């Protein structure tokens, strides 16, 4: 039994590859220029497509390999292109697909998976005959192996999609998914200028600054790539400090993997206090500078 792993974001391959390796042999597929680290996660072969946006052609290739029996399961990173491809493969190959799984167990005749439902309010545990899965970040802790996979460039079949142009997103130049410490701000910040109160604190603990959906997408106090949440990045730092974040379930879904969660919020009844390890009820503008002083001691 062999599986395949696909992610257009190469940074997500290590975790998914580690999951697939636990089930047996697997091949990994990605696009773009191959980074050296891709070959260190135990894939029998790493295949590189020239372009990730030709989702129809990628789905054609992978669904044919599922139908032919070359692969039993496909694990696909839950990215924009990954979800599109997973849906296409599922229908083309006529196999069931389950989305955003956070746990996977294989038995002889079925698989058992877990995923969030109702916007993160519940966890669905399911038993199914699904063969295609989109995978939530953090499904496994990436582990390298001591041999290198063979890397091969492969061409795609015909696509109806033409890529006209592509531009990198404006980014703050940080990858919050890799951060060890995150200071995350919510609407409670009030306005962008107040970031100056938060910055000394973040730098004192070597944290990157991230934010909730309104902060990044509605008010643009922070760049989009710093958004934590169900529709943003899923982060797993050692320490996650939530400042003025009420703790809507969609936000919690993006930071649930954090080791320690600290919350500061004026509202004693804010849901974030049910999802934190340590919390202070109070005004972040008073508390944060004092915390910086205390950390200097």
């Amino acid at each position, binding site marked *: 039994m062999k599986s395949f792993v696909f992610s257009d*974001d190469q940074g997500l391959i290590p975790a998914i590859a580690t999951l697939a390796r636990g089930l047996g042999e697997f091949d990994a597929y990605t696009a773009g220029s191959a980074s050296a680290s891709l070959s260190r996660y135990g894939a029998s072969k790493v295949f590189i497509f020239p372009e990730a946006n030709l989702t*129809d052609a990628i*789905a054609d290739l992978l669904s044919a390999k599922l139908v032919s029996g070359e692969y039993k399961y496909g694990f696909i990173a839950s*990215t*924009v292109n990954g*979800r*599109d*491809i*997973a*849906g*296409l*493969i*599922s*229908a083309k190959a006529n196999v*069931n*697909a*389950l*989305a*955003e799984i956070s746990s996977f167990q294989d038995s002889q005749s079925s698989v058992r998976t877990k995923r*969030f*439902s*109702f*916007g*993160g309010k*519940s*966890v*669905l*545990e*399911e*038993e*199914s005959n*699904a063969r295609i899965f*989109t995978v939530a970040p953090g499904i496994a802790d990436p582990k390298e192996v001591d041999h290198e996979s063979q890397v091969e460039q492969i061409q795609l079949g015909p696509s*109806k*999609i*033409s*890529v*006209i*142009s*592509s*531009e*990198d*997103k404006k*980014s703050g130049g940080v990858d919050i998914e890799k951060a060890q410490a995150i200071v995350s701000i919510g609407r409670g910040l009030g306005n962008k200028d107040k970031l100056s109160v938060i910055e000394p604190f973040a730098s004192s*603990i070597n944290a990157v600054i991230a934010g909730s959906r309104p902060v990044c997408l509605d008010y643009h106090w922070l760049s989009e*790539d710093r958004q934590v949440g169900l529709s943003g990045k899923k982060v797993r730092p050692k320490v996650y400090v939530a400042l003025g974040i009420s703790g809507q*379930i969609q936000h919690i879904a993006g930071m649930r993997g954090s*080791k*320690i969660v*600290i919350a500061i919020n004026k509202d004693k009844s804010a849901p974030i206090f*049910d*999802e*934190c390890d*340590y*919390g202070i*009820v*109070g005004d972040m503008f008073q508390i944060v500078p004092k*915390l910086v002083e*205390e*950390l200097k001691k």
Partner: protein
Amino acid sequence: MGYNTIVLIKVIPDLEQIKADQNGSINTKNIPLRIETLSENSIEAAVQLREKHGGKVTGIIFGAQESIPIMKKAYAMGVDDGFVITGYQGNNPHLTATVLSKKIKSMPHDIIVMGNQSADSYTGLLPGMLAAALGYTLIGNAVSIVPVERKIRVKKFLESKNVDVEAPLPAVVSVAQEINEPRLPPVMQIMAAGRKQILTESVTPSQDNSVKVISNTAPKSERRKNIFEKPEEGIPAIAKVLKEELR
């Protein structure tokens, strides 16, 4: 002239009102229904296409009997014709894709617009399944849609890039929330929408037990919940934790 746009409208339970009982079981019965946020963006995108290029906007809801009134909101926002297909049995994207593709094939269409993921299950699988069922190209997570003759040019938002792509029509386009700000319809339009006819039909989907739910419960928070109501106590305690964890 113009383009026939079909907009797929999803009706979901109001997630804010979903609560777990003492045993952690999730109750979704008798929760008020609302239009999915991305469906509002989809309607807005479809109506803007008609405003700029002419043509017609048809809305389709696949839902329960209770979803029928939701179409009025779509009408108020500018949808020309609305169909509600009842018989939706919960999350089964394969079945949903089959039902929707049959309906779409029965009417004139150039562009099918839908949300890229829905806020309740967040599967994000339906756009691909529907495109495959229809045999059309899918362009995902669009933030702009511009038809040019028999093609469509779409800017799609990826995680680290924005990409412009082109595909032939008919096409399925899934939209991101950033595509637009859905309009708030004026009162006159809301009143007119209330009088407009909504066509309904029902399907009786065959039972599919290939995905069995073992449990559906609220995630347990195993956090310590050490909350300080006096900042003067909390500050030193938290500073200590930060120093220890980030040594």
